[in-house]
């Protein structure tokens, strides 16, 4: 039976979709620091696409790769609960301030280090940076084709994958030889829930630096529990040109950030008059609430 080596790229993100009134500062702007850190929603869809391949081809392996601060190990654990086989946390000060090009460069260097893969699956877009650029850029850096906006894998064999893509006005079915990178839309099947047995098994899984931080876990120190150690890679574990990493390796720079003010103190009453509604729409556009 065929088996596939799958790498899933996943990012830990602040939950920007569900900004409730509790995450609002007194001035009406969003307090980003208090937003909960979650598994980027479309990356969960990506994981499900991988898990469905593994359901059909049992000997397949799924490696989750995330780049981020040490805390991002949480999403690797989450991936283990749902069925991922392996996880790598790519973390290093040198990655700080990366734009999408520097991010995709670092991820592609880590993927080269993993070496053996048939399919890379990632989310279409992260809900914080919101660019949807990392997937295609990783594919370009690895010199492999990309299939964006995947809703479903239609068929797969050792040579070729057939994918249903969701476009603006319709769907497209495309085929491509492996290896390939696929980005997954939120119209794809949602991810299965955590598996209770796996939850017990991986509850304490963490990286070495997290273990040292917390004084270490008794079980994790035992060599018979290797699955509790999550791989942690820094720049010394990958072959890379450090000039292409982090802020220095990022062609785009953030010049300025404006917070959007959401709350007006009291409710405003507006009459059904051309002038009043014109003023309202202009105000909403100027404050970037719409438009």
């Amino acid at each position, binding site marked *: 039976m065929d088996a596939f080596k799958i790498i899933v790229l996943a990012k830990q993100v602040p939950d920007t*979709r569900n900004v409730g009134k509790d995450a609002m500062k007194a001035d009406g702007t969003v307090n980003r620091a208090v937003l909960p850190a979650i598994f980027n929603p479309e990356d969960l869809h990506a994981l499900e696409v991988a898990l469905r391949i593994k359901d059909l081809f049992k000997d397949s392996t799924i490696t989750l790769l995330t780049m981020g601060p040490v805390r991002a190990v949480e999403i690797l654990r989450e991936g283990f609960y749902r069925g991922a086989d392996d996880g790598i946390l790519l973390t290093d000060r040198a990655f700080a301030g990366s734009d999408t090009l520097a991010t995709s460069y670092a991820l592609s260097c880590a993927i080269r280090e993993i070496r053996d893969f048939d399919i890379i699956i990632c989310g279409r877009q992260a809900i914080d940076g*919101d660019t949807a650029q990392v*997937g295609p850029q990783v594919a*370009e850096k690895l010199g492999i084709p990309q299939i964006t906006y995947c809703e479903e894998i239609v068929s797969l064999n050792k040579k070729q994958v057939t994918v249903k893509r969701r476009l603006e006005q319709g769907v497209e079915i495309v085929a491509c030889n492996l290896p390939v990178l696929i980005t997954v839309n939120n119209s794809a099947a949602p991810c299965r829930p955590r598996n209770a047995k796996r939850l017990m098994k991986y509850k304490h899984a963490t990286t070495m630096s997290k273990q040292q931080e917390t004084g270490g876990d008794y079980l994790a120190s035992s060599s018979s529990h290797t699955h509790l150690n999550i791989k942690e890679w820094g720049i010394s574990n990958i072959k890379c040109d450090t000039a292409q990493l982090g802020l220095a390796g990022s062609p785009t720079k953030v010049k300025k950030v404006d917070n959007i003010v959401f709350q007006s103190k009291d409710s405003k009453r507006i009459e*059904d008059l051309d002038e009043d509604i014109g003023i309202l729409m202009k105000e909403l556009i100027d404050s970037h609430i719409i438009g």
Partner: protein
Amino acid sequence: MNNVTVYCEFEEGKIADVSFELLSKGRNLANQLNCKLEALLFGNNLDGLEKEIAPYGVDILFKAEDERLSPYTTLPHTSLMVKLFKEQKPQIVLMGATTIGRDLGPRVSSALGSGLTADCTELEIGDHEDKKEKKIYKNLLYQIRPAFGGNIIATIINPDCRPQMATVREGVMRKVISDPKHTCEVIHLDVKNYFNKTDFAIKIIERHIEKSKINIKNSSIIVAGGFGVGSRENFGLLHRLASLLGGEVGATRAAVDAGFVEHERQVGQTGVTVRPKVYIACGISGQIQHLAGMQESSIIISINNDVNAPINKIANYVIQGKVENVIPKMIRYFKENSK
């Protein structure tokens, strides 16, 4: 050399509206920078299309014709752009933030090692001082875009790398013909000098129109209607406003029960719970079972002919009036004020 270049999308025999909008913006930027405006058109059967493009003030049109360029696939379009940009060295490249532009843009930017800014809502020319390096950059492209789910607006620049690349959504820029009689120089690219052997890895097996499933949960703008909307036809107004704002249509149970709209759109205790950036409640009284599904929205705008409707107590803006009168005005003034 050093010009402003717009990638024109060509699908199903038509140039996309967003491309005309970007040509209009591109003309404006080229005037400020005192350079030329170039357009790229890759596809099949492109005869005469320069007549549609030139009136937007295009100076040079690069055309690449080959049956393998249409329908669009990533790699041949990438190879054309990358090699052409290495020859022509544009300073600014604009593309639509469409399913094509967002597939092609990042691939091209990675191959060139130049920065790309996604989903810009404004583009301006300005200077930048790097205080650390004590260096002043003249005439950079300020790429202004929302991020963090629309909670912040960032101004992004690419000080050192060229081209400065940006994508913009359809409807954000205004389409302006600069001279209906304007003509442009047309340069035909010899495609075989641009393609790589591996560019035809993707085979399109089938394409068809298919409606996507309704999922209002991920939408940051919701235009919701209640029983007060009055009819399925009036809900059409809500759909128009929602699509203009890039949002989705939601509803109360009363509106669903009356058959105005699909059940998948119901918000509330027995529907979905949403926390969008903006919730526009049209003809909704605001019963507790409905509020349970939407009261965490960041901004609530209520349109109701009854000032005392309970929903008005939690609304940031209350428009007193009839839905069928107010929404057409909102549509009109949105169009007039958007850039």
